[in-house]
């Protein structure tokens, strides 16, 4: 696209660019490397300030320890549950709404679009939402983590715009063949929309995986997701296990344990992210935020 320029100003520019880029790269990666190093170091090395970006002492005790906590496993299982079912419900509901909304010939189409946009401007506050969930008797049930978040308006609009851009001819051919919309949606529209559905599905999945605040206000301890578990270890609300370890060890051990929890609870995102990265970005470019 551009002609290669070999002047001094270009060389200076290159130095600046590559310095900034390498620094940003390190800034994004090093925090995770540091967490990994801490989680694999001995408590003594951590307290003696010896650990930076490489484990000192190679100690997997932190991982062995968190795997003995039943509440860690439970929290991790809870998060998997919320992510899988939350994403599933959200996708079904969003698709069911987006498809008819993409048909501008429907009566009341304008009113429905307005209904969506208005709800983006005037959201009910924290307290009305909380009182609603309690009034529906959802507090203390796992449904409180799933049902209230079934449709996100931004994801809905991404999908509506995608459906609108699909060629109408294929659908009309199916209609002439006598297929109803109940058949057309799963058989013809969805197979054509895998990229868009993967994108919003990922957004939903990340939301459910990372959610902790709704767990805090709606759930009982046994139903806590792993992020809330982590938050409770970090701020000391939850004391990890009443293990027999000497009291001098507990403070420093908790640092490597915390790091081990951080690593294990973020691992799915870090591992899956490079493979799914193109879908993550698609939502921003495919669905410009327009009603």
């Amino acid at each position: 696209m551009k002609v290669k320029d070999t002047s001094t100003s270009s060389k200076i520019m290159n130095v600046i660019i590559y310095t900034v880029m390498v620094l940003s790269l390190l800034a994004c990666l090093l925090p995770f490397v540091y967490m990994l190093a801490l989680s694999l170091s001995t408590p003594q090395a951590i307290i003696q300030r010896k650990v930076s970006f490489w484990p000192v002492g190679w100690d997997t005790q932190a991982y062995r320890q968190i795997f003995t906590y039943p509440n860690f496993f439970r929290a991790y299982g809870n998060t998997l549950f919320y992510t899988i079912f939350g994403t599933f419900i959200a996708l079904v509901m969003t698709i069911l709404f987006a498809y008819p909304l993409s048909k501008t010939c429907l009566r009341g189409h304008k009113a429905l679009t307005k209904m969506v946009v208005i709800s983006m401007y005037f959201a009910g506050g924290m307290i009305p939402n909380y009182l609603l969930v309690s009034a529906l008797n959802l507090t203390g049930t796992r449904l409180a983590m799933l049902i209230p978040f079934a449709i996100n308006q931004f994801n809905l609009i991404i999908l509506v715009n995608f459906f609108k851009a699909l060629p109408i001819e294929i659908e009309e051919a199916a209609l002439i063949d006598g297929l109803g919309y109940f058949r057309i949606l799963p058989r013809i529209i969805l197979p054509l929309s895998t990229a868009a559905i993967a994108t919003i599905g990922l957004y939903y999945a990340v939301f459910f995986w990372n959610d902790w605040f709704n767990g805090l206000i709606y759930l009982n301890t046994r139903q806590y997701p792993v992020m809330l578990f982590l938050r409770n270890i970090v701020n000391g609300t939850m004391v990890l296990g009443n293990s027999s370890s000497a009291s001098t060890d507990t403070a420093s051990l908790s640092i490597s344990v915390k790091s081990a929890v951080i690593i294990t609870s973020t691992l799915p995102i870090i591992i899956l992210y490079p493979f799914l990265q193109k879908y993550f970005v698609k939502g921003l470019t495919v669905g410009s935020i327009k009603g």
Partner: protein
Amino acid sequence: MRRKVDAAIGKTPFSKHFQRFWQLYVMLILPVAYFIIFKYLPMFGNVLAFRRFRPGMSLYGTEWVGFRYFKMFLGDTAFWQAFRNTITLSLLNLALTFPLPIIFAVLLNEVQHWAFKKIVQTVSYMPRFISTVVVIAIMGELFSPSSGLINNLRSTFGLGPIYFMNEPEYFRPLYIFSGAWQYTGWTAIIYLASISGINSELYEAAEIDGANRFQQVFSVTLPSILPTIMVMLILEVGRLLSLGFEKILLMYTPSNSAVSDIIDTLVYRVGLANQNYSYATAIGLFSGIIGVFLVAGANALSKRLTGDGIY
């Protein structure tokens, strides 16, 4: 085909239209019910700001009390402190983090190694998908006074440890810095898309005129993406008051509360922790209305400046 066109312009009677499209209307039932229950009932639930709430009775309160709760919080010093903190943090955050994605995108665009560019892009988007809890937990360990990397570095220079996460004067820098860490790469995508749409003839013309790469950035790249920058700025102004509530709640400690208590954390504390539902709803509604004005104002401004609204 013919019938479909008729339906579009609304000439067919409804019965015929319904006969053809009823399955689409059936699909709408669940989502519309969801919107009414989970988006609109809470919206009307804001009426609680003007009504007294009694536990176990209607979630819309039991009797009208007018502006009683508004008068209460307007006379409350905790509210004004939260209000000031919200404005200060929002403005600082906007001023310091807004230029970063632009700079990042412009520089990234100049990278000529395709593979390196791809790696930087992929890695820099990732923090956007990390949970706030994890971000704050990492920050807590990085800045820990007893074993954190930053304080280790300080101690090698003979400096004493600082409890960064607890000191009020470090709260705002840490909030803004972690936000920049999380969102710079992600927000840069929009600018990168805008830059990739620039006509390459403009660069060729600039080169013939003798502009070096540095001058090309200022005479071609930045002017070309100015409309995008304006739209993004307007969007940011519109959401000025919506700070990352969950992040602040995670960073909140009693000792930094003088700067970290914002409107949303006040609503949380007063409403959910102390169960003063009506009082908290009134505060939430007040900041919500300011937010709507900001969004609407920003949108109107965008329509005047760029001829196009955001919503």
